[in-house]
């Protein structure tokens, strides 16, 4: 059975089932993907995050600045409100700060001055550190302190400078190393006289900054004012984390700093920056939380991926398992082979092993089949060659153009061409011609298209020609064979000349019974007519029975007799003027008798007619021989006679004219004599020729001769409406004669009589023939007619040669008859009574001395 195969090498791989393997591969792939992706992805994510963060921070810083500005703007509007307030104007109206020199300002601590209205607006703002009223000269007149803190010294001393600066716009500066926001607005009394300026000062500290941001905080972001020159913090929104005056460098490690300049508020002595500090730890936390999220997401993805992959492989492997089970079942049941390797393990490899196994098997089976096929081909080739050689049919192989490639011995024998002669010649031209050749080409063509089944073109009957030119009918069968090298035709030619004949014979046999013009019947042993053809009707009529009835007793006896004896019997039956010959042929095994009838009436008549014909032929033959002989004799005699006449005439003329010498004339006379002798010699030769025939004699009954002769002329007598009357000597009259000659004589006489009777009315036509012994030794035959008789002149020349009264006669009949009778030692003569008739007599010597041995057998048929 199956040969050992090298199993798949890595056995461990083979043992792992496919789903397990798929899970392993899935996990492995997931890990690898994880490992690499995590690296790249985390880094990329961080970068994106940082960029995004930076953008956000910038945004936030700008927003912080805007909020700060707005906060300041709200102080500006508050200052404007205070400066223009009615209470201040009313307060100022009675005042006239007109003293020269320095003045000491009036300070309000804890108590609110009158010019200050109850301002509910402080609620949204940090209350100012102090408010100062400056007169037109820039001297501080009244100061309102909200907290018991000393007023910075510079503010009063450099009052005009600060007022002028802060009148245009909010002004930020450091007083006593603390940043302050200064806003100034001019004020008027009730009459609208300018009274100086109202200055509002707010310390910019952590409270201020926090309030400026209105509590909006972003992950611990801190806003601060920086001294750009000294790189340190002036104020921050969270002084605990970011104490003022601390250098900036100290914080860059923990914060991301976004600094923005704001020139509008810069004092001439201060270079300030507005900064937003974003703590780094917050950012890191955000970044790591995002990364965690992504990583979690990725783990879920990987798990889903592995599970889907595994499921797909599991389904696939289960299908393969099913397939393998089927293959295994099929192999065991149909092919009878076992699984070549242990079951289980990696299905794909098992499948591959199966495949390899199948391929191996198929290849082996292919090899086996090829071997077997080759052996079969060799055997069948041998058989075919034997068939080809010994076939009784002619087998000829043709190429696609109809030329002979090969033929067997039978073809050589049948057509008389050698293999070498025929090779390469077109078969249609070689053994067919004309219509047959044309038909044969048609057969090749029609077998060529291949569309129609072989049967249609097969078995055509054609007429072939042998090498010697004789024809023979053949049955042609053509088979078209498509080879790789081209098309060839195998032509079978079957000589059917014999079969044709057989066919015809069988056909004719089959028609025998039903179409036979002769009666054919079959009767069984009880004489019941089993079958009778149409032609048997007259017989049935005669018997008075029909098909299925029993034959008359006599015929029943005959049937039984034939069956008993087992021999054929032939019987005759005469019915209604018809003569039938019935052949009873017994079929012993079936107890049947076949009756073959034959209407022999015509045969009998034909026999008579033919006998008559024959006799006439003999007669005519004789006459024509005589005629030819007469012509010959005439010519032969003509020569010497003509010469004689010429000589004689020449002599006469010479003698009449008196010319010619005697010697000359004598010589001519001698010539005449010679020629006359020559004529005599011719006649002598003729006679000796006739006399050479030896007499042919046999003993017959003259009565039979008479009957036979009369049968010759039966038709003529019928035509004449004549019945020949006989009066023949009973017991017969034997004579010893030349049969033909005496028959000739008798025929002659009968014919003459009939010719004579032709001219008389039908009712007066009589012809008698009588035979009688004459004396003891002779026999006399009389032929008497009632014709017109023979006149006396004719009577005289009756037996002269060439004397005739008939237009067609030779005048030789009676002279020959006379010669014949002379030969037989007999006599012939005639007696005639003109107008009444003529009687011819023949007398022959009898053959009585032989009478006792006389027999008619052998002679009369």
């Amino acid at each position: 059975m199956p040969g050992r195969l090298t199993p798949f090498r890595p056995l461990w791989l083979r043992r792992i089932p496919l789903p397990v393997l798929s899970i392993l591969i899935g996990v492995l792939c997931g890990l690898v993907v994880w490992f690499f992706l995590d690296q790249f992805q985390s880094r990329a994510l961080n970068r994106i995050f940082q960029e995004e963060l930076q953008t956000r921070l910038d945004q936030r810083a700008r927003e912080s600045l805007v909020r700060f500005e707005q906060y300041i703007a709200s102080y500006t509007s508050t200052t404007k409100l205070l400066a223009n307030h009615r209470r201040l104007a009313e307060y100022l109206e009675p005042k006239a700060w007109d003293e020269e020199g320095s003045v000491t300002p009036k300070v309000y601590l804890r108590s609110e001055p009158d010019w200050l209205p109850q301002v509910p607006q402080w609620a949204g703002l940090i209350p100012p550190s102090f408010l100062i009223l400056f007169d037109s000269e820039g001297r501080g007149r009244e100061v309102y302190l909200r907290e018991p803190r000393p007023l910075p010294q510079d503010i009063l001393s450099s009052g005009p400078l600060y007022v002028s600066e802060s009148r245009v716009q909010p002004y930020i500066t450091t007083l006593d190393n603390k940043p302050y926001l200064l806003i100034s607005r001019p004020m008027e009394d009730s009459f609208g006289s300018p009274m100086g300026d109202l200055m509002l000062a707010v310390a910019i500290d952590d409270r201020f900054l926090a309030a400026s941001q209105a509590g909006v905080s972003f992950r611990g972001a801190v806003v601060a004012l920086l001294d750009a020159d000294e790189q340190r913090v002036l104020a921050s929104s969270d002084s605990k984390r970011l104490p003022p005056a601390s250098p900036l460098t100290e914080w860059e490690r923990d914060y991301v700093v976004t600094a923005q300049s704001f020139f509008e508020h810069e004092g001439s002595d201060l270079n300030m920056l507005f900064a937003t500090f974003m703590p780094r730890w917050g950012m890191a936390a955000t970044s790591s939380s995002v990364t965690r999220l992504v990583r979690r997401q990725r783990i879920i993805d990987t798990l889903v991926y592995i599970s889907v992959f595994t499921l797909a492989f599991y389904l696939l492997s289960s299908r393969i398992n099913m397939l393998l089970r089927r293959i295994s079942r099929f192999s065991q049941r149909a092919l009878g082979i076992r699984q070549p390797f242990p079951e289980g393990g990696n299905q794909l490899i098992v499948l591959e092993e199966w495949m390899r196994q199948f391929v191996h098997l198929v290849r082996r089976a292919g090899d086996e089949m090829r071997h077997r096929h080759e052996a079969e081909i060799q055997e069948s080739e041998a058989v075919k060659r034997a068939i080809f050689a010994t076939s009784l049919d002619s087998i000829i192989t043709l190429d696609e153009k109809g030329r002979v490639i090969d033929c067997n011995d039978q073809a050589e024998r049948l057509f008389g061409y050698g293999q070498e002669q025929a090779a390469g010649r077109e078969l249609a031209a070689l053994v067919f011609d004309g219509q047959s050749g044309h038909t044969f080409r048609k057969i090749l063509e029609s077998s060529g298209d291949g569309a129609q089944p072989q049967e249609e073109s097969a078995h055509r009957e054609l007429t072939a020609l042998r090498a010697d030119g004789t024809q023979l009918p053949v049955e042609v069968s053509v088979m078209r064979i498509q080879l790789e090298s081209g098309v060839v035709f195998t032509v079978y030619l079957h000589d059917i000349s014999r079969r044709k004949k057989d066919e015809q014979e069988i056909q004719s046999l089959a028609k025998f019974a039903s179409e036979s013009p002769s009666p054919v019947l079959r009767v069984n042993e009880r004489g019941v007519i089993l079958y009778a053809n149409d032609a048997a009707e007259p017989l049935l009529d005669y018997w008075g029975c029909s098909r299925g009835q029993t034959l008359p007793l006599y015929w029943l006896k005959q049937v039984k007799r034939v069956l008993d004896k087992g021999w054929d019997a032939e019987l005759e039956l005469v019915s209604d003027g018809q003569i039938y010959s019935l052949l009873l042929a017994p079929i012993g095994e079936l107890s049947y008798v076949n009756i073959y009838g034959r209407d022999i009436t015509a045969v009998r008549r034909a026999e008579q007619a033919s006998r008559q014909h024959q006799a006439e032929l003999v007669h005519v033959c004789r006459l024509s021989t005589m005629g030819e002989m007469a012509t010959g004799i005439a010519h032969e005699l003509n020569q010497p006679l003509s010469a004689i006449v010429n000589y004689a005439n020449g002599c006469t003329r010479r003698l009449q004219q008196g010319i010619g010498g005697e010697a000359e004339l004598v010589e001519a006379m001698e010539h005449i004599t010679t020629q006359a002798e020559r004529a005599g010699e011719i006649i002598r030769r003729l006679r000796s020729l006739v006399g050479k025939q030896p007499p042919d004699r046999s003993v017959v009954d003259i009565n039979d001769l008479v009957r036979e002769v009369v049968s010759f002329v039966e038709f003529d007598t019928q035509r004449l409406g004549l019945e020949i009357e006989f009066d023949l000597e009973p017991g017969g009259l034997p004579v010893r004669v030349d049969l033909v000659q005496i028959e000739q004589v008798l025929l002659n006489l009968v014919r003459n009589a009939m010719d004579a009777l032709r001219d008389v009315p039908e009712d007066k036509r009589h012809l008698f023939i009588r035979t009688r012994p004459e004396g003891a030794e002779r026999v006399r035959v009389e032929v008497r007619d009632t014709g017109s008789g023979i006149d006396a002149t004719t009577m005289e020349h009756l037996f002269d040669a060439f004397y005739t009264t008939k237009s067609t006669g030779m005048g030789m009949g009676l002279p020959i008859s006379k010669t014949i009778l002379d030969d037989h030692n007999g006599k012939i003569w005639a007696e005639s009574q003109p107008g009444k008739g003529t009687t011819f007599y023949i007398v022959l010597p009898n053959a009585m001395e032989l009478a006792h041995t006389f027999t008619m057998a052998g002679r009369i048929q």
Partner: protein
Amino acid sequence: MSESVVFVVDDDQAMRNSLKWLIESVGMRVETYASADEFIKNYYPGRSGCLLLDVRMPGMSGLELQEYLANQQIRIPVIIITGHGDVPMAVRAMKAGAVDFIEKPFNDEFLLDSLRNALALDEHQRSLQAERAEIAARLAQLTPREHEVMVMVTDGKSNKEVAAALGVSAKTVEAHRARVMEKMEASSLAELVRMVMAANI
């Protein structure tokens, strides 16, 4: 007439001799030959006479000889001798141009008359032949123009008509005509016409 010979061709010696005997009795010259071949060997076309020929002969038959002579343009008159009853053969011979046929045995008067007629016919044919040759010789002397004139004149055209047809003057035609008459040795127009007809132009 004295030059003329009766040539007898018959395979039967008695016939030959007896015929010679008979024919010589009226003063004609006779030559006898036993076969057609022998006759052909000894005869040349210039000889005048007639041929008395037996139909039935071994070798070349009488009819075949007759046919041969006709093919050779030899116009010697032929009389056929037949045996009794050779009528079909006689008919064939007559159709092939025989002047007469005689049945054996002969009526001597009939035979001799027939021979005389045949010799006369031969004579006539020979003179015609001679005249035709003479006329042909004279015709050969004519110039083409004279020939033209002669043909037109003998066609019955007048001198004027001829002149008009040939595009010459009547006088010229007159001159041509005179020369034609002279060369052809014709004494009258009628004779010229006869000559032209005899020559079968």
